[in-house]
């Protein structure tokens, strides 16, 4: 690789301009964490006062459980639909075909990704309220939220699976065909094992997207389906900055940053092993 020779003063000014950006990125998060350890005046010395308060709040516990239920349930279905979509489009689409009809599946898959989440959420709100008004089914709640979540998760899973399949040798599928495997056998015994990392990665991505989503959840939620982000939002909109929300936010920040760093350490070790393998 070509050496990068920047002058010392350029390097120093780059550092001087970047350091404040790093500080600014973490300062607000850090501040929340610091405030979360400040107990109310009557409970001095109890550093974890607000955290204990959280654990005793049935609303928070319920919201947390709902978030998990929603994320796991929707990711399972989203991963199944997405995997089949990614596989089907890779394997069975006539790639020589041109025109609108053959571009249609990609257009459909990209719609949830491109659609601004506010438009996404409001579309669902209106759609479900029409259906509910006409049939009495699908009242706003965890089910409608789940349907919306599956809709934005599946395309991402499809993209991950499609990318993985594109990196494989296409002759593999011909070989399984030559060995008299039918489509179902070939899918279950060849495709699924080969794309397993993509399926797991897609599931985790779907899970993260679901847990993290606020806007779409907010517009599809009903009175009894408050998830964690919605709980925080309504508490903040109602009473502004408050210490118990600080504690809850700190827990969420710590979980995300911890998971991110663990994932980094894990993938780095694995790449190291992969790099080291040809040597031994």
């Amino acid at each position, binding site marked *: 690789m*070509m*050496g*990068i020779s*920047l002058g010392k003063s350029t*390097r120093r*000014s*780059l*550092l001087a*301009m970047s350091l404040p*950006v*790093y500080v*600014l*990125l*973490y300062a*607000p*998060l850090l*501040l*929340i964490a610091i*405030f979360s350890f400040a107990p109310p005046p009557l409970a001095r010395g109890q550093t974890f006062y607000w955290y204990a308060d959280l654990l005793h709040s049935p609303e928070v516990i319920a919201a947390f459980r709902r978030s998990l239920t929603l994320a796991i349930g929707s990711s399972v279905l989203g991963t199944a639909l997405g995997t089949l*979509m990614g596989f*089907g*489009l890779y394997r*069975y*689409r*006539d790639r020589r075909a041109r025109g609108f009809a053959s571009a249609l599946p990609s257009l*459909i*898959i990209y*719609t949830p990704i491109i*659609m*601004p*989440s*506010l*438009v*996404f959420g*409001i*579309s*669902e709100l*209106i*759609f479900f309220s029409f259906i509910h008004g006409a049939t009495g089914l699908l009242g706003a709640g965890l089910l409608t939220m789940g*349907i919306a979540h*599956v*809709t934005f998760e*599946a395309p991402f899973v*499809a*993209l991950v699976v499609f990318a993985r399949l594109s990196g494989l040798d296409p002759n593999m599928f011909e070989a399984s065909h030559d060995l008299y495997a039918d489509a179902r056998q070939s899918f279950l015994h060849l495709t699924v094992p080969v794309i397993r990392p993509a399926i797991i990665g897609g599931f985790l991505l779907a899970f*993260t997207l679901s847990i*993290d989503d*606020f*806007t779409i959840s907010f*517009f599809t939620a009903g009175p009894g389906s408050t998830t964690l*982000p919605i709980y925080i*939002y309504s508490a*903040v909109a109602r009473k*502004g*900055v408050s210490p118990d929300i600080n504690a809850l*936010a700190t827990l969420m*920040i710590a979980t*995300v940053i911890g998971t*991110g*760093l663990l994932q980094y350490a894990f993938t780095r070790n694995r790449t190291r092993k992969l790099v080291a393998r040809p040597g031994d």
Partner: protein
Amino acid sequence: MSAATASRRGSAARAERFGRAVRLWVTAGPGLAWIVAFLVLPSAILLGIGFFTSGSYGGPELPLTLQPLREVAGYSILGWSSGNITVLARSLIQAMSAGVLTVLFAYPVVFFIVTRPPAARPLLLLFIVLPSWTNQVVRTYAWMELLGPESALSHLVQSLGLLQPHLGLFPGVLAMQIGLTYNYLPYMVVPLYAAAEKLDWALVEAGRDLYASGPRLFWNTVFPQTLPGLLSGIILVVIPAFGDYVVPTLLGGGKSMMIGSLIASQFLETPNWPYGAALTIFMLVFTCAGLLAFRALSKRLGGAEESMM
């Protein structure tokens, strides 16, 4: 005999094509149908509502009309008012300033990272991206704390006489700008970094050998090479910032609405679905125009268009 074989071969090919189509619909069909049923159809309904008359409870009623679209431009039954244009203009200005600010912050950071040893780069990039993995509501809430009337920052500004005592830096236009820039900065850094990592430094060297100095060297050798990344970054920042909902509702307050909060209030507070839908049409037109401009520009730049599927 040969004709029979040929026709058999032809029908076999047809059968195979048919089989492929069936398998395509069996595998990809359920997912595609799901997206059509639960997003394509609902958003088409939403856009359609923009052409209905607003009923007494804000719901869509016949006859069909262009009144909601005229309302977006500021014409209501009471005559023209500038309120709407102000909100639309504010959203545009906020989104575009967020674009400019993220570019200004991202360039030094990106070049700081790419000039580090290769082993350190992923971690430095990770530290830029990590905050954006936390929930947007949490991230935005953090700034309410930092900019509130009791915060050190507000006290500082108050003591400088720039702000009346007991007032915070939030809610307001400034807080919204900070929130948007903070939220979308990683979306600028990542594509720019991808472009900068592939940078051909030989060109920079050549420029330096020709005695080009700082800004000219950057403008003529570095900037053109990072332009594709910059364009993707602008798309990833400006479009979502324009339609953002969380930042304007939490940091903007009632006096400084953006199109996102204006649309939402037509469905949540005092309902006027047709008007909300008309605003949505405007927002989607803006989104599509942005994406098309991006496509045209990146095609002209000769950048390989990334098509995954």
